[in-house]
């Protein structure tokens, strides 16, 4: 039911046989309900393992930095494709070495929302499963997938991939909505209130770096977090350590983060990273009139200098 259309399977198999790619990164059924798992397909006959449905949450672009220089195919949702744009801008991938199957994505299921609706813990969704493209079932209960997709998916304005070699699914009309609505109210907070808000948001972080590792644009060979000379913060996850890491990572992503949400979904502690990153994305939009992930030929604003650049923060 979630297997890829025959034509798509054949195209991917063809890429593999012809050597256009040496591996195709997609999704397959996993051991956990409502959650697909990434799969690395190298043999053409294995394309039958690939699936696409609302359980395909991971941003597979994060794996590209481990496959530098190789010819890779992968499935990209609207958000994921914008991360590919980012890597192209920064010279981390060569377009000719990529084969992208772009999926017009209406949204991915958030198991926490499903669990909340059913009043169970998120690890106890055993009998839940997707029932076609619209509904989800668990123990006799039925709900519309659209009601339990991630907030980010609900607010998404880029459902259709910006880049692809092959498109899957019906084109989805992007709503004329404000994806930054959830962070606009931060503008009205005082500095003290913003600091309190930030402190609260990151307090449960334990420096596991799942966010960094899941992020397609965190590809540095040696992350500042792993340096001992100098050692920027301690690994014992005291509030100051966590605040330091989250601040610097967020700023390192300014003008680069495409808002795919992989970090927020990967976080085992439920930290609302999306709110931090979207706030900076909003700042970049307002100050530099730029949104990452649209144009592979554009230069991120923090890598260029213009005389009329906003400089209100310069003391």
């Amino acid at each position, binding site marked *: 039911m979630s297997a890829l259309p025959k034509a798509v399977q054949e195209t991917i198999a063809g890429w593999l046989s012809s050597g256009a790619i040496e591996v195709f990164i997609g999704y397959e059924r996993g051991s956990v309900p409502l959650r697909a*798992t990434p799969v*690395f397909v190298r043999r053409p006959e294995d394309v039958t393992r690939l699936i696409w449905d609302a359980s395909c949450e991971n941003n597979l672009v994060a794996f590209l930095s481990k496959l530098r220089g190789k010819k890779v195919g992968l499935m990209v949702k609207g958000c994921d494709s914008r991360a590919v744009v980012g890597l192209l801008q920064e010279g981390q991938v060569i377009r000719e070495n990529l084969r992208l199957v772009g999926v017009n994505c209406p949204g991915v299921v958030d198991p926490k929302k499903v*669990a*909340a609706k059913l009043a169970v813990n998120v690890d106890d969704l055993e009998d839940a499963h997707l029932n076609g493209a619209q509904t989800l079932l668990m123990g006799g209960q039925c709900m519309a997938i659209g009601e339990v997709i991630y907030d980010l998916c609900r607010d998404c304005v880029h459902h259709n991939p910006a880049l692809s070699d092959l498109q899957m699914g019906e084109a989805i009309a992007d709503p004329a909505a404000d994806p930054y609505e959830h962070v606009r109210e931060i503008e009205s907070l005082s500095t003290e209130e913003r600091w309190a808000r930030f402190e609260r948001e990151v307090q449960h972080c334990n420096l*596991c770096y799942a966010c960094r590792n*899941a992020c397609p644009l965190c590809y540095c060979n040696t992350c500042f977090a792993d340096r001992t000379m100098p050692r920027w913060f301690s*690994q014992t996850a005291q509030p100051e350590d966590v605040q330091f890491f989250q601040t610097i990572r967020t700023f390192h992503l300014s003008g680069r983060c495409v808002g795919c949400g992989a970090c927020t979904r990967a976080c085992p502690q439920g930290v609302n990273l999306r709110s931090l990153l979207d706030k900076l994305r909003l700042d970049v939009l307002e100050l530099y009139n730029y949104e990452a992930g649209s144009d592979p030929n554009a230069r991120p604003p923090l890598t260029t200098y213009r005389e009329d650049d906003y400089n209100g923060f310069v003391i």
Partner: protein
Amino acid sequence: MIAKERLGAMLSDLMRRYRLIAPVQHAGELRFSEVASPEEVVLDYRNTAKAPKATFFPQTECMMRFEQQLDRFNELRGVPLDTTPTLLFGVRPCDARSFLLLDKIFLGQQYLDPYYQARRENTLVVSLACDHPRQTCFCHAFESGPYDRTGTDILLRDGGDVYLVEAVSERGAELLAGLALPLADGAHRVKAAEIEAQALARLGEVEPVKGIEAMLALLFDSPIWAEVSEKCLACGTCTYVCPECHCFNIEDRLLAHGGERVRGWDSCMYPTFTQHASGHNPRPDQGARWRQRTMHKFEYLPRNAALYGCVGCGRCILSCPVRLDIRHVLRRVRTAYAEKSAAKVTA
């Protein structure tokens, strides 16, 4: 046995003598926590998101403090050990079983870990037999099961409207004697047996783990490690939620006038875990690190401690952001071993 509706009163009573740590609901997640009142305790549950190892081995703990005087002389101070009498209540048999390995690591061998010892010696474990194993549970691969009594002081079994209470250790028997509970009657015993049978029936097919250590001994150079670790994000979440994972880091923190030395959980999944100051890293890629994780749990620990480093609780599978399934890794180990053996025969 004790009627379920009277459990709260019994716990209230015990809380006068013990700090009570039990499963509590905390913002959509079930976790082991100190409770202020028995109403907080949740016993109708599958398992917690994180293992109860933090009871004996907290995520961070201060090991010592040092004071700086006159900018030169550092005086070192120990810290008070946690000897609060504690009741760790409602753990699943898989988690109770996990304490055996932690005991061997922290209390056995040549050196005794006083921080772990203080907490462990002053804690009584009351486990709750598991009546609803999940699809991700594989305790039965370890010659164990949802009603295993290993590692606990007292076992509770669901008997319908009561819990049957069984002393497993001497300390458990002592506590039980003091509670003067009525003996379980025939009807409730039958009910408990029914519930146990239902629990066992829920367990799926699984390959026994026994013997995998011999297979792993031959697979150090196998290409399967790169294969099984390809989707791993190296986030370490599996090691954090695992009841058996015990690797830790020791770091110094500078404070206003001196500092402290803190122990904190660490993970073999992190690239810098084994990196030398020179930059040399004996485990330079995720394949090597996954090999270490698997070998440590399923070959080195069985050889050194006669115990596996896994109890089959399945938390790692549920919490992994890419849903890497350790059972699939073990399956791949078996097929790789079979391939290797076949190759030897035909060669």
